[in-house]
């Protein structure tokens, strides 16, 4: 069992990547009650945005110089697509029955996948993502892979920026107000249309940071990467309590740790030796989702304060 600290760290890192993507689901849901199923694909386009910047840079550019530019590229692409989707696909359906924007989201998700498959050079199979040079880092008897160093820094910084924005800025307070009562928010002078755009844009920006983390972690990206990861991040959002931004991060971490521990230890349980391999990881993640939906549907940080008097 002395590899347990290592497994926990692995789970924490994987989970914070889920959490970065989950923020987008939860923010958009919190404000317009829409499950943006295209968010996984927005994450995917962010990864290709980062790769594009890398390919533009002259060969041999230092990764430490390239990485910030790649993050900016990822954010620009993901935010542009998310804001465009809000404006042209979701906004016209804002007063339509719930099912209409949901189906639109699924359609948009397929369209984005196919667009990258068809038009991005050589994207019909996986494309190699540049790597941070240098060996893995040892802290005590825990090893952090080079590709994961980015997450160690990016996840807490992103979370701090988000918390500051939502709690301390005027726009952030307007966002909270819009989530709780959109009509009354308008009476206070909050431009709720603008707040909705900002929610989509912020969610996409964090997903883009997650996408860079994904590329560095796995070394390659492909047009389908947003599907399973999007589902996992959605699970994380539900797990934490959808609509709650801290819940998204906590849900992500819980999911990542649970998935990692299940993969590492379930085979040790007598009679379960068949179910411990990496290919079962997704199964355990979604089993966790089903359990949460059965026993705590409001999620770990679900709201308990009375909503309306």
């Amino acid at each position, binding site marked *: 069992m002395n590899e347990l600290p290592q497994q926990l760290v692995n789970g924490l890192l994987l989970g914070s990547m889920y959490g970065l993507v989950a923020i987008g689901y939860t923010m958009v849901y919190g404000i317009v009650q829409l499950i943006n199923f295209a968010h996984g694909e927005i994450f995917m386009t962010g990864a290709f945005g980062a790769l594009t910047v890398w390919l533009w840079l002259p060969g041999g550019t230092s990764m430490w110089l390239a990485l910030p530019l790649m993050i900016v590229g990822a954010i620009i692409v993901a935010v542009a697509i998310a804001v465009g989707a809000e404006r042209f696909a979701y906004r016209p359906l804002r007063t339509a029955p719930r099912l209409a924007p949901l189906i639109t989201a699924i359609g948009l998700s397929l369209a984005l996948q196919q667009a990258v498959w068809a038009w991005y050079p050589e994207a019909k199979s996986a494309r190699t993502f540049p790597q941070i040079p240098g060996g893995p880092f040892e802290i005590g008897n825990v090893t952090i892979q080079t590709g994961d160093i980015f997450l160690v820094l990016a996840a807490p910084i992103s979370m701090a920026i988000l918390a500051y924005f939502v709690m301390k800025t005027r726009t952030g*307070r*307007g966002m*909270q107000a819009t989530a709780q009562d959109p*009509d009354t*928010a308008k*009476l206070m*002078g909050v431009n*709720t249309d603008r707040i909705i755009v900002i929610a989509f844009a912020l969610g996409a920006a964090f997903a883009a940071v997650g996408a860079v983390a994904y590329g560095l972690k796995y070394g390659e990206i492909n047009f389908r990467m947003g599907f399973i990861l999007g589902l996992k991040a959605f699970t994380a959002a539900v797990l934490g309590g959808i609509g709650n931004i801290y819940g998204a991060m906590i849900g992500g971490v819980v999911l990542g740790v649970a998935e990692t521990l299940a993969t590492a230890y379930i085979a040790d349980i007598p009679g379960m030796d068949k179910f411990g391999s990496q290919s079962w990881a997704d199964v355990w993640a979604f089993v966790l989702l089903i359990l949460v939906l059965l026993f705590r549907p409001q999620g770990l940080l679900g709201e308990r*304060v*009375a909503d309306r008097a």
Partner: protein
Amino acid sequence: MTALLEVEDLRVAYGKIEAVKGISFKVEAGQVVTLIGTNGAGKTTTLRTLSGLLKPVGGQIRFNGKSLKKIPPHQVVSLGLAHSPEGRHIFPRMSIEDNLRLGAFLRNDKPGIEKDIQRAYDLFPILGERRKQAAGTLSGGEQQMLAMGRALMSQPKLLMLDEPSMGLSPIMMQKIMATIAELKSTGMTILLIEQNAQAALSLADQGHVMEVGNIVLSGTGQDLLHDESVRKAYLGED
């Protein structure tokens, strides 16, 4: 002199059903004007149209000489029209203080905002004692105080109050009405919707009785208070 608010032949519809069928009234600066009438008379619809949440199908709204017809709701408050909605609609998961700050959402004068928060606490001391508490945990009466305090945070020229005494205990209702009287004495212009016609008319300079989308009777508060038909229909006398 033109009135602060002029409503002319205002018509509002939900789909094909007209809820407000061409009403006209004025609110002069410094006045308290009340709209009374039964549920479904169109009073709340009128206020929601004045603040831009509903679009009229006809008529004119002029506030401070400016037409409000093309102004989106989030800009109405910056013109000086504050709306404390029916059912209070405080932001339940935010603290009392953050609710008040949202009332000042478009203001940039930080010291002025702090001063007005203090003034809201002076007006309603219970809010000051619980400033960090989530607003959803307050009682109905305290939520009403918060809703009024929040509306005042925009430094309005006209304060619109929709059913401030709804669902309150008699003691709390008196307290709220006393506060409205206090605001009146400071010169605040108020457009008041009330089911408690007695209390509303005693306070009001002008009153209008609404029935199924029309104003059927207008007069000073005192006139209406002594009007035979009003006494029968709204003051529970026979």
